[in-house]
């Protein structure tokens, strides 16, 4: 299955909904203009969009979290990249969903977007996840805000690879950091029985962990993943790991991939200006298989999804 970049473009989008999910997170639904239909109906999970947020207003002073009151006053110049949590493309409309966390002056401004507001975006950008229909097992490993592209991927895999069994490992610092999920725990608080609606609706078994044990298992997502791999010993030839999250977590997952000989795709994050390969700022150090040395690839164009064994983990 090809994951080659599709034709991209600059599009306007109308806000359908911008819904707060707890204090830190929001879900933004954007309906793109008609001409975006073809590029976005061909978009793959793991690709991203760059949104122009430079002209958005700040929220009321009282609504700005204390830790952002200083940085909120900064101007925004560059677009901000967001991966898709979902794309719903039909003949008449293209709806893109993104999940974002309020971290700085740009995402703070995004909180003020209201239904029918217009934003400008570029996309779909980059190279997404590679999907092979013949895999028997797909393992998703999501850390913190790395979850959105894997939520999208889960839906795509379910549609395209009906014979592939999928299992998701989801980790975050605390329960609050999972609040963009539709989360359900049973009354007995059995650690293995935390349900995340986004995966449950596709009948995907999910293992949840938090660093502080506030929900699910206490520990890192890479620990629950390692335990499961040790216990189940999946055949690497028929399995694949897809992962997105903080770089240290991706690096640890890459190590598990080589230990258990299961190919692994990682979705990386870098500071980027353009997102289209022009500025060359989002360099990712990779192995040069021909020379044996290293080379830089671009997160925005060659990635954000890379094979874990091509990345030089530092």
């Amino acid at each position, binding site marked *: 299955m090809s994951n080659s970049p599709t*034709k*991209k*473009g*600059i599009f306007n989008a109308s806000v359908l909904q911008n819904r707060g999910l707890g204090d830190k997170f929001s879900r933004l639904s954007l309906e793109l203009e008609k001409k975006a239909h073809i590029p976005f109906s061909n978009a793959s999970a793991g690709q991203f969009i760059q949104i*122009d947020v*430079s002209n958005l207003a700040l929220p009321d002073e009282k609504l700005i979290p204390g830790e952002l009151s200083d940085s909120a006053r*900064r*101007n*925004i*110049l*560059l*677009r901000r990249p967001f991966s898709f949590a979902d794309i719903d493309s039909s003949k008449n409309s293209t709806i893109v969903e993104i999940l974002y966390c309020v971290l700085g002056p740009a995402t703070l401004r995004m909180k003020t977007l209201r239904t029918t507001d217009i934003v400008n975006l*570029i996309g779909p950008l980059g190279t997404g996840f590679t999907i092979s229909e013949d895999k028997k097992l797909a393992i998703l490993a999501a850390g913190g805000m790395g979850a959105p592209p894997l939520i999208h991927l889960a839906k795509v895999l379910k549609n395209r690879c009906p014979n592939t069994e999928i299992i998701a490992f989801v980790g975050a610092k605390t329960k609050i950091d999972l609040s963009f999920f539709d989360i359900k725990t049973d009354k007995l608080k059995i650690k293995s029985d935390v349900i995340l609606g986004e995966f449950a609706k596709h009948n995907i078994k999910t293992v949840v962990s938090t660093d502080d044990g506030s929900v699910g298992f206490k520990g890192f997502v890479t620990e629950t993943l390692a335990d499961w791999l040790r216990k189940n010993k999946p055949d690497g030839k028929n399995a694949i790991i897809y992962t997105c999250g903080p770089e240290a977590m991706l690096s640890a997952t890459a190590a598990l991939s080589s230990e258990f000989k299961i190919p692994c795709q990682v979705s990386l994050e*870098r*500071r*980027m*200006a*353009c997102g*289209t*390969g*022009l*500025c*060359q*700022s*989002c*360099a990712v150090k990779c192995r040069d298989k021909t020379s044996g040395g*290293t*080379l*830089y690839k671009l997160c925005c*164009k060659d990635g954000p999804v890379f094979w874990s064994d091509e990345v030089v983990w530092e």
Partner: protein
Amino acid sequence: MGIKNKDIDLSVSLGSVKLKNPLITASGTCGYADELDDFMDINLLGGFITKSITLKPRLGNDVPRIVETDSGMLNAIGLANIGVEKFIQEKILMMARYKTPFFVNIAGQTIDEYVAVAEKLSQCPRIAGLELNISCPNVKQGGITFGTDPALVRQITTEVKKVVRDKILIVKLTPNVTDISVIARAAVDCGADALSLINTFTAMVIDIETKRPVLANRTGGLSGPAIKPIAVYLVNKVFNEVGKPAGVPIIGGGGIRTASDAIEFIIAGATAVTIGTAGFIYPDCAVKIMEGIKTYCLKHKISLAELIGSLK
């Protein structure tokens, strides 16, 4: 029916090279042009300038390579490029698909390297000219060290000019000097056919939590709207003191985002203008800027030629 936008002649000349309009994409911000294909018709541009090409391939600096500032950004890419051999083999044919004249920006660590790159490129018929990058602030050797010393500017311009054959030679100037006109004059005296200004300002952003510079290179070049008024001033200064008396055209740029920004540069004395950072945000903005310049000329009943250096 009066004159319409499409009837306005925006053509300008840089030495022997005629551009159909003054809009050029700045070096290092438009890749090898093909990256822009999905967003705009490259053939609508007056010209484009490739990223810097060096004798040997360069990997570039470690990350972070950029950081946003208020109304600007710092970059320290470190002249990452595929090297002149691969550039000639892989990119020239691809770029020759466009009707738009293109210029190749060249850089090196020694004068010999600049000359070697210029010599190879001057044999490629499709290249309209070379832009000498003696102003990159982000490499340890070469780049800006040449561009801040008038004696070295004379030497490097003279040596490269000997090998460029029929290509025009553009010299790109750094603003990180006491008097930019001294540098401009050195380049013009030694055969520069056009001057390009300005490159970025050396700058730093500090992470106050770690007390370290944000960029791996520690410093980077400041670009974007933040530098525009300084760039307009410097273009006007070089136009008055060097360009106009010597009859050498100026390619002006620095923070141009709108047609009115570009028109300011043209009034200040620029024959052509470069779009850099703004293209990262709106990759098709050069075309909109061109339309805006036409509208302005129509409204003010002035030709582009009359507008150049018309500052009162």
